[in-house]
């Protein structure tokens, strides 16, 4: 496409029906709408329902949060497509192109934009913001725990920070790969022009953005006391902060559901000709499996949280044992969501990491079918293991055996991930660039996380380790050391494609070493705390645990420093790094075969897939993943 053509297009798009309200909607109008409607509903609540002494305040907060979420999304334009559809005013082609961001430069990143690459980038920035918030909270936790009787934070603030650190990180890790990369990269990988439902895609990002302020608002309305798992009845005892917390989750559930459906339908219906299921890159499989598992897990989250809001704002008693309720109901439904959710977090980054291993080892994926089977197996088993979080709760002790079985069974498919990783790098031409650094770190961390996981799966051992720092260290090894490091590998891998710039590898490697070492120090010390018997989520502790807490805090500072250096490398390279070639890693999958920056609709020619994307070292004809060009080739010829 020539510049003149582009200009002409932009003029048509921008000129048509310019000045319509929805063309001026952006993040700012969203804030305005959210604050406005939130305030209105708050006012309404104050004058109507606030008279109830037991739950009036919670009712008002519920209304305010409802106002914020709906108002923000109205303001930013999330519901425009729905409203247009109801009114029967289908958008013109120019409007659709406008919504896809044509001719709006960088401002389109602040808008409801249907281009999957813009949505992916918006997700990426949101993930950075969330990790920064969560990381800062983590630093406050570690600072509090530097000394046994620290009064850096009050117990209430400490609990609030622990809870919000947890939930911020859970939200961030759920979307860290399925947001940026399943949106930006995955459709290109399968040769699609966009996601199946671009408007739903844009909706998913803005809905999730509206979920963040309620989470932060919890700090200003008393704080959440009960940890990220918010076990009832403690969370029912909490103030209106719990309502805000629940609202965050309810909103988040909408976003994840919509995004999951979109991912699934995209892969089911939008693959390029020849992209059979057995040729699909592992990352695409991982996105699909993660999305499907999210679809299973999110309804349970929604149920738990709506019941929580109901207990708070209407006085029901789902979790209040004095009126027939039960904390076990909360715990069961929470973990029916919670354990699949762990794999919603883990599977997509692992898929991304497998792409990294194959590309940088210059070898085909080892045992491709097994790893896909393993991911499906993990997903299937993960819905049957939830009660291993509840071994010590007193709920159904007779089920300890079955849940021990399912939990330990899951280590078989998890082991296959290792088999495929080492099989792929075995005797490869291992090109150790930054993504590979993180890949190797993942292997080590995930071994530690996995082995400590089998201790915890064993009921007699869990009777000692449950609720203590051992568990904390274990899940940080799997989710931070495992999933998040794998996601970082993916980020470094796809950075040139997403930003059009090369990542500053020297700074990146400095960050890597800080992260790698800081991480081990932090969490090995926490394992030791757990072995010795230090409980989780305590603001102060017995002085016998002092030395290892100091070590852990110092490690955490180093770890955070590493992330900040990495963030610096990312931001500075994004702004002024050297321009990336289209395929800096000589990779074979489709996203590297198109231009950088990726044009609207991704490919200038039609794509036909002829082999899988892992033909490294194969005969020449097997090395070709896809061929380009079709009947419209002639037209393109004019443009070049």
């Amino acid at each position, binding site marked *: *496409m020539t510049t003149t*053509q582009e200009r002409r*297009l932009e003029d048509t798009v921008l000129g048509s029906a310019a000045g319509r309200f929805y063309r001026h909607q952006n993040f700012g109008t969203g804030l305005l709408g959210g604050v406005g409607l939130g305030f209105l509903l708050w006012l309404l609540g104050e004058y109507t329902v606030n008279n109830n002494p037991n739950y009036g305040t919670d009712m008002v907060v519920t209304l305010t949060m409802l106002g914020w979420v709906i108002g923000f999304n109205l303001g930013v334009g999330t519901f425009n497509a*729905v409203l247009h*559809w*109801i009114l*029967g005013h289908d958008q013109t*082609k120019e409007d*659709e*192109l406008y*919504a*896809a961001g*044509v001719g709006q430069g960088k401002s389109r990143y602040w808008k409801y934009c*249907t*281009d999957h690459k813009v949505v992916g980038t918006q997700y990426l920035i949101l993930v950075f913001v969330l990790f920064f918030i969560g990381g800062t909270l983590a630093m406050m936790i570690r600072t509090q725990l530097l000394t046994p009787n620290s009064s850096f934070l009050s117990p209430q603030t400490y609990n609030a920070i622990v809870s919000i650190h947890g939930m911020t990180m859970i939200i961030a890790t759920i979307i860290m790969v399925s947001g940026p990369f399943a949106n930006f990269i995955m459709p290109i990988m399968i040769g699609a*022009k*966009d996601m*199946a*439902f*671009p*408007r739903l895609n844009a909706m998913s990002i803005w809905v999730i953005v509206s979920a963040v302020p309620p989470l932060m608002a919890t700090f200003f309305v008393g704080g959440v006391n009960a940890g990220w798992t918010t076990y009832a009845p403690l969370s029912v005892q909490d103030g209106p902060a719990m309502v805000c917390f629940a609202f965050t989750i309810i909103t988040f559930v909408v976003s994840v*559901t919509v995004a*999951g*459906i*979109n991912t699934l*339908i995209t892969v*089911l*219906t939008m693959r390029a000709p020849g992209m059979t299921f057995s040729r699909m890159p592992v990352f695409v499989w991982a996105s699909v499996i993660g999305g499907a598992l999210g*679809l*299973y897990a*999110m*309804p*349970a989250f929604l*149920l738990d949280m*709506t*019941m929580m809001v*109901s*207990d708070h704002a*209407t*006085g*029901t*008693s*789902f979790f209040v*044992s*004095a*009126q*027939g*309720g*039960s904390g*076990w*109901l909360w715990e*069961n*439904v929470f973990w029916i969501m919670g354990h699949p959710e762990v794999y919603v977090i883990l599977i997509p980054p692992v898929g991304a990491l497998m792409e990294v291993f194959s590309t940088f080892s210059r070898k085909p994926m080892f045992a491709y079918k097994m790893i896909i089977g393993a991911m499906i197996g993990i997903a299937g088993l993960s819905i049957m293991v939830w009660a291993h979080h509840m071994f010590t709760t007193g709920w159904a002790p007779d089920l300890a055996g079955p849940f021990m079985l399912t939990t330990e069974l899951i280590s078989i498919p998890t082991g296959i991930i290792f088999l495929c990783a080492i099989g792929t790098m075995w005797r490869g031409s291992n090109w150790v660039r930054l993504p590979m650094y993180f890949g190797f770190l993942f292997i080590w961390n995930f071994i530690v996380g996995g082995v400590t996981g089998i201790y915890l799966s064993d009921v007699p051992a869990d009777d000692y380790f449950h609720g203590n720092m051992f568990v904390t260290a274990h899940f940080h090894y799997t989710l931070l050391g495992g999933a998040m490091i794998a996601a970082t590998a993916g980020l470094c891998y796809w950075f040139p494609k997403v930003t059009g710039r090369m990542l500053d590898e020297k700074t990146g490697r400095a960050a890597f070493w800080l992260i790698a070492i800081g991480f081990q120090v932090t969490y090995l010390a926490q394992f030791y705390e757990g072995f010795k018997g230090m409980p989780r989520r305590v603001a102060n502790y017995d002085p016998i645990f002092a030395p290892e807490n100091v070590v852990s805090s110092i490690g955490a500072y180093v770890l955070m420093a590493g992330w900040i250096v990495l963030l610096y490398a990312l931001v500075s390279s994004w702004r002024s790094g050297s321009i990336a070639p289209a395929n800096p890693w000589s990779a074979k999958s489709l996203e590297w075969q198109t231009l950088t920056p990726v044009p*609207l*609709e991704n490919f*200038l020619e039609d794509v036909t897939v002829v082999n899988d994307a892992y033909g490294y070292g194969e005969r020449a004809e097997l090395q070709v993943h896809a061929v380009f060009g079709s009947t*419209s080739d002639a*037209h393109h010829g*004019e*443009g070049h």
Partner: protein
Amino acid sequence: MSATQEHDVTHEGGHHDTPEQRDRKELSALVLFIAGDAIFLILEILAWFYLRALDTQNGWRFSKATPANPATSGSNNPHTIVHEVAKVAPGWTIVIAALALIAGLAAWWAEGNARKGVAHAPILAAALVVALAGIGAQVYQFQILPFSTTDGTYASMFEFFMGSVLAHLFLVVVVLLGVWNRARKGMYNEVWYQIRLARVWTLWVAISGIFLAVTAIFFA
């Protein structure tokens, strides 16, 4: 615009798909959404049975114990009266589920008519009215309940079911409103698959409503 340009620049949210392709995509998406909603429904019903079986401290259908004679014995009197929470009469619960079913069947009829190319907008209008009546009936049932939310877990679960039905009916109304309006404008004269989507969704809401009604009526 020339054909060349059109190929280069179309970005229309899948609008270069044929109606058949869009139908397939949107129906698949709806089926997935219903699958997620079904998990919600199953868990909701499981929660009902779980709390009913636990009956923690007799709290399923017994509201808080009150002292036998507060004036003389004070709050420490062990002789207390426990109030049993009244069961809801099945009438309105059945009516609401039936209204959702009627709305779904009407949408089905409208779909058939659209297929045949005969009038379908009025039938969709009727479906919309029926769905609105369902919402009205549900709101009315809230007014006449023989208990309040604070009367134990039976009351809590029952009202939760009602809330769930209400939320689903709201989505039905949104969908039927759009479909009716578009039908009224003649937008479904040739491509009518969205009526089918509305029918599938409305019927699903009816089915889930029937499940909830059966649970609430027979297992109080």
